[in-house]
């Protein structure tokens, strides 16, 4: 078998060092055929790399007017497919320099005074393998990033982008129910999901759920939830407890084919604009807040809770609560309040409630923006650590019979 020659650029200003290196390259033999080109400074090296492709560079650390680290930085500025693997050639006693070169991306270093053919062969072979692995990993990462980008776009497509209006012929501005979503994924793909749909001309169904974890696994489950809630909507969505029960059964049916425990918390509510009430059911999800327009007080919605989805079959009780014109319902996932400060203290639901209370007079959009800013500022990282989903439902009035 004939091996392709390795194109090597030797960058060395000292003619004796260059002669020795060239001689050793000649002696590498048929198992590592090489085509060496010798240049005497960095400028010539970059001219040469612009002219032809080089697999590997043997780079003298101490070149006229420039050191090897600076050359390495310039090489990193080249397109990846033009970057050769670099082996730094140093003088004896320059081990610290060599370590720095390796940190900056050199694949290996050789001490010129101790150079011999076996160590040169070993260094070149190892550097080429490293370079090839890096190229493969980079290509794989690029493919993965493209896949994740597409998955993220698909996931966003599952979220509602238009909201129902009540009554059905009302303009969005004059709708009796208005929706204010905030959705911030922690990674490219999120485990939070919400949906809003009209059940009748006076009833809206609102589902929010949070799949344990985030990333691809969680995103797949949110996609399943989207399918399941669409499937079960007609049969059960007017009855929140029954709806969650059906979602849970559907999820368990799918998950039985995996050995993974994929838990999902969910809260589902129906706002009934004729009866002036909301009916809700809870599957282990943080309970929403109810900002009462008449009193300006922020209260928790007390809803009987069932087990998280995806764990076991069970029933979910439905709770009915009266609502009034001017009320705002605030649904959210735990990413909103599960942030910790420098001392490890959690922001928590009580602080979240207090933050909403302090701003209760604000319209929903600035209310949410300022509240999220406060939680973010509390965090030691000044960022949310998990997916964040927050959904406001503003009740502007009631429908007549």
């Amino acid at each position, binding site marked *: 078998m004939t091996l392709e020659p390795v194109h090597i650029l030797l960058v060395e200003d*000292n*003619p*004796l060092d260059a*002669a*020795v290196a060239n*001689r050793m390259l000649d*002696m590498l033999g048929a198992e590592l055929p090489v085509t060496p080109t010798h240049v005497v400074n960095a400028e010539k090296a970059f001219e040469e790399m612009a002219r032809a492709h080089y697999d590997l560079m043997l780079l003298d650390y*101490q070149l*006229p007017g420039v050191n090897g680290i600076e050359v390495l930085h310039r090489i990193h500025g080249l397109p990846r497919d033009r970057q050769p693997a670099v082996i730094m050639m140093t*003088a004896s006693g320059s081990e610290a320099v060599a370590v720095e070169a390796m940190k900056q991306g050199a694949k290996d270093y050789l001490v010129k005074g101790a150079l011999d053919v076996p160590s040169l062969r070993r260094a070149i072979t190892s550097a080429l393998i490293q370079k090839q692995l890096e190229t493969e990993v980079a290509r794989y990462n690029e493919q993965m990033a493209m896949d994740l980008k597409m998955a993220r776009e698909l996931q966003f497509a599952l979220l509602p982008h238009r909201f129902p209006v009540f009554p059905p012929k009302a303009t969005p501005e004059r709708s009796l129910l208005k929706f204010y979503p905030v959705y911030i994924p922690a990674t490219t793909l999120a485990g939070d999901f919400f949906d809003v749909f009209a059940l009748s001309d006076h009833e809206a169904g609102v589902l929010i759920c949070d799949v344990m974890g985030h990333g691809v696994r969680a995103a797949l489950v949110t996609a399943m939830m989207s399918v399941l809630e669409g499937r079960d909507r007609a049969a059960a969505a007017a009855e929140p407890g029954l709806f969650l029960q059906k979602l849970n059964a559907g999820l368990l049916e799918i998950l039985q084919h995996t050995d993974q425990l994929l838990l999902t918390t969910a809260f589902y509510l129906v706002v009934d604009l004729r009866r002036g009430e909301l009916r809700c059911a809870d599957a282990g999800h943080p309970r929403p807040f109810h900002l009462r327009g008449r009193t300006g007080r922020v209260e928790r919605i007390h809803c009987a809770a069932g087990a998280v989805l995806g764990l076991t079959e069970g029933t979910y009780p439905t709770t009915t609560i009266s609502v009034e014109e001017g009320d705002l319902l605030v649904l959210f996932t735990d990413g909103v309040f599960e942030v910790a400060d420098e001392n490890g203290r959690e922001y928590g639901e009580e602080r979240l409630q207090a933050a909403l209370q302090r701003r209760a007079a604000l319209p929903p959009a600035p209310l949410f923006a300022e509240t999220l800013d406060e939680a973010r500022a509390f965090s030691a990282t000044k960022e949310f650590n998990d997916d964040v989903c927050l959904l406001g439902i503003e009740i502007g009035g009631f429908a007549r019979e």
Partner: protein
Amino acid sequence: MSELVAVDSQVVEKLLALGGPEFARQMFDLFFQYAPEKIAQAHGAAAAGDWEGVEMAVHPLKSSAGHVGACRLQALARQIEGLARARQGETIPALLKELDDAYAQVKPLLEQIRQNMK
């Protein structure tokens, strides 16, 4: 420095083993051409108080001398490089004079070795 032998014959043997007499002669010729250039550069830089220039001149001289086994020259170049890097220039002129002497001493020895290479 005087206790060092002027030429390390083992280094010359290694050179011969690496590339044979033709290659070794080529290395000696390169050295005769390159070393005086670098020594002159070091003198010029020292006269201007340019210690970085001295360092840049003697650094390649150090490895070049090593390739032909010129031990004393190599050791002096290393010493001067260290002083120049530390910007301790007081003793450098005297050491450069020693460097001239060392080169003058080793050159005929190397020429003789070159001539006797088979």
